[in-house]
């Protein structure tokens, strides 16, 4: 644990060293631009691989041993199966059985189904997690129980970190719904079909060793090959790679809550009145009942006007698929599929395209898709008077969520956060957020049921709504209104021990998560 801390440009105290590696404090949006060459994977020679293309080994344990599993190995997994993942826990069961210690787990996201890994964090099998620490894993981290310091990265930040060598993956295990013995793999078919495998793309290209695990082996070639077998070292056939009914997790139905529907309606009206919704526009609305409902309102507006959107970025779901099939949107650029309709559409519709964090979010790409989106709808646990927002900790200071693609999406032309002014008794707008995950300059609009605050930097939006019936207020007014109802909450209490850091999209540290007192 580092004793050295420095204040970054947002005034947040961040460590200069994490798990023995020196770190760079956040410097501002688009300020940090490393030079030199990208990290490169080890040179492989095809002479070392079976000429018949059959890379199948009997068990996952064999594959891990052959891949050189040892103390301190950095192992990556992916969340395509969401809460139905069966592979991550098996990997660490094996590592524990073999007596290895101080492993680093690099998941693209973690889910409740992986809570049993807490015992390996306690007994030293796993040293720390880089990626996301959700739910119980987050609480465990907040309580200061993880041996090393956790690192939170966005989906794009994960690609960036792999490309610039901030994280060097020893062994990537890619759980695949369908694969061939050569290692070509796809997510769009098979009993555990989950859509796409984009989160594993960087790992397949850069990890020292790559293992594909599948429960649906097909003869070469497996098409489409979302993951190229040419990157793969070993293939393992398991009984079950994921639990299909749990792959579709999270909220996949539009909300019935009148308060959330009001938020959705206000957001759609805002987008309409500001001209954001126009023929050929583009949008991204994530999962969650409110976001899904906004998509439905967008569809209503487009249908009524005889217009269509050029593209929608997914998280695809049945509502987005309906829009595609009705001709209200030309393309779905899909980053992950939230329901089985999304998976079906990806197989059947030419306009439903499979993307990855490389195309969508990567900081080290020559541009990416996210910044071209006209409007993105995101959530937040807290927002402050400078429009800085938090998605990882709650107001009580406990880490409970990962960043996902949230930070990367902030680069869209207009970022809107529809959030209730308070949850139960907890006000959402604060003097200062507990953890800054996104700087206020990138957050344009806060829509609450009691009023809409537009970032003063967006004078264009303010001007467009001069005559609007929408309840436009300042963020200070919204904060005061929330506190008048709830009272002013006490500040959470922390020790001076840093338990995790939040990386910005460029790899610098934007904020620190502290142990709760």
């Amino acid at each position, binding site marked *: 644990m580092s004793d050295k801390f420095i204040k970054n440009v947002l005034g947040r105290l961040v460590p200069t060293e994490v798990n023995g590696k020196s770190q760079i404090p956040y410097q501002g949006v688009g300020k940090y631009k490393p030079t030199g060459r990208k990290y490169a994977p080890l040179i492989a020679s095809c002479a070392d691989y079976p000429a018949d293309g059959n890379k199948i080994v009997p068990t996952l344990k064999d594959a891990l041993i052959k891949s050189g599993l040892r103390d301190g190995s950095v192992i990556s997994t992916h969340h395509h199966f969401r809460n139905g993942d069966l592979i991550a826990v098996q990997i660490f069961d094996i590592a524990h059985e073999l007596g290895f210690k101080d492993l680093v787990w690099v998941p693209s996201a973690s889910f409740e189904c992986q809570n049993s890994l807490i015992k390996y964090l306690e007994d030293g099998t796993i040293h720390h997690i880089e990626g996301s620490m959700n739910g119980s894993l987050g609480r465990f981290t907040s309580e200061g129980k993880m041996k090393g310091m956790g690192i939170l990265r966005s989906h794009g930040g994960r690609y960036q970190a792999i490309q610039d060598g901030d994280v060097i993956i020893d062994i990537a295990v890619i759980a695949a719904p369908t694969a061939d013995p050569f290692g070509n793999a796809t997510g769009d078919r098979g009993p555990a079909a989950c859509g796409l495998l984009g989160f594993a793309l960087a790992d397949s290209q850069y990890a020292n060793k790559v293992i594909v695990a599948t429960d649906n082996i097909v003869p070469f070639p497996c098409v489409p090959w979302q993951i190229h077998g040419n990157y793969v070292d070993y293939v393992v056939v398991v009984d079950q790679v994921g639990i299909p009914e749990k792959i579709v997790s999270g909220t996949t139905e539009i909300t019935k809550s009148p*308060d959330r529907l009001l938020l959705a309606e206000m957001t759609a009206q805002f987008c309409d009145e500001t001209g954001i919704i126009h023929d050929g526009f583009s949008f991204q609305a994530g999962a969650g009942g409110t976001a899904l409902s906004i998509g439905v309102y967008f569809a209503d507006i487009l249908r009524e006007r005889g217009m269509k959107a050029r593209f929608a970025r997914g998280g695809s779901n049945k509502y987005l698929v309906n829009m595609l099939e009705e001709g209200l949107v030309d393309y779905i650029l899909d980053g992950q599929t939230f329901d089985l309709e999304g998976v079906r559409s990806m197989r059947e519709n030419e306009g439903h395209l499979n993307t990855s964090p490389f195309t969508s979010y990567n900081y080290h790409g020559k541009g990416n898709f996210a910044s071209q989106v006209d409007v993105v709808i995101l959530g937040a646990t807290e927002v402050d008077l400078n429009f800085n927002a938090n998605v990882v900790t709650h107001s009580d*200071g406990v880490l409970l969520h990962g960043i996902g693609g949230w930070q990367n999406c902030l680069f869209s032309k207009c970022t809107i956060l529809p959030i209730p002014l308070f949850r139960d008794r907890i006000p959402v707008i604060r003097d200062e957020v507990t953890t800054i995950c996104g700087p206020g300059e990138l957050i344009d609009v806060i829509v609450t049921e*009691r009023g809409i605050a537009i970032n003063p930097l967006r004078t264009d939006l303010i001007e467009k709504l001069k005559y609007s*019936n929408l309840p436009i207020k300042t963020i200070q007014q919204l904060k005061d209104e929330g506190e008048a109802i*709830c009272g002013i909450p006490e500040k959470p209490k922390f020790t001076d021990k840093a338990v995790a850091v939040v990386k910005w999209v460029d790899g610098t540290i934007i904020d620190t998560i502290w142990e709760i007192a």
Partner: protein
Amino acid sequence: MDTTVSIGNKGKGVRSDCSITLGLTGSSGIILQIESKVKSLFGKQIEQLARQVLAFYNIENANLLIEDSGALPFVMAARIEAAIRRLMATDKEFLLPMLPQNNYQTARDKNRFSRLYLPGNTPPLMINAGIHQPDGIILDLEDAVAPDKKYEASFVVRNALRNLDFYGAERMVRINQVPRGLEDLDFIVPHNVNLILIPKCENASQIDQVNERIEVLKTKHGISGNIWLMPIIESALGVIKSYEIATAAANVVAMAIGLEDYTADLGTKRTNEGNESFFARSQVVNACRAVGIQPIDSVFSDVGDMEGLKNNVLRSKSLGFDGMGCIHPRQIKVIHDNFAPETDEIEKAKKIVNAFIDANERGLGVVSLGTKMIDPPVVKRAQRTIDVAIKTGKLNQNWREIENVR
């Protein structure tokens, strides 16, 4: 009297509410136990409030358990007070300061397209009710509260009248059927209730009894504002007596019909088409129009069927009703949209209002449009059409500026 009592709600799915278990003891001081999902943020404030209420009733020895699911202070105060008053004979009321924005009066002929029913013992449904902009919000002490919860509900309703922002909606309470409902008046009359709904009304005497108690309370508390009444007709006898009821008192400003109980009384089933209640509805409309008060229709109970609701509203409007009840916030917009003035009515009203303002600016005493003179009541009606059009989103509030800019 009991020695321990439990008040309020807890458990899975309960939000913005709390459960209080209180036992009065002989010695050993106040033993306070707080279990709250917001404890790290509001623990101190919860404790402070609890101790404040106990001290107000001079309680020095008690076991108090608060199981909190994020209750707002006015809810928690109501719960603690109800628990105390279950155990102690006292008339003392623990009141938080009234929100200044709740001190408004409503006009006799205020627009009453929609009135949203909220169960009186379910705080989470109250908190955001006003932001959905119904014309009226009804805190219901009658059918929406279970018999054994009616006592504690009256404290929640009283505190809501004081400390819940109604965002300009008319502040209404449905009391229990007279005579039981007369006791409810003690909890609401001193706290600026705008309108009281009197359920299952069958004769003028019920109105008189309510008004007598209101007058006593007004004198006692030095209240001068108006308190309007809306009797609800829910039986065959009520329908027959509807004219008598409508004329019972000057503060009866509207009369509603409740069709669930009415159709049960007739021994028939309620249908969406409503043929079975055509006579009753027409009778209520006629009684109201004869007296010059607003006839208000029943609720539409299928909250998922917006098309059915729309048809119901259109039928209601064509029968002569001025509004109807609703039981879900999503119904409000449909009710407003379909009771709201049509586009040609709005256009005509705009011309009249513009002519009026123009005449005023030019110092003319007479308003005319083309060659026609316009009487003051016509201007007033046009202005009201404009107000309603703005409120229902059919017209921009800055319509004059926008149209003059062009």
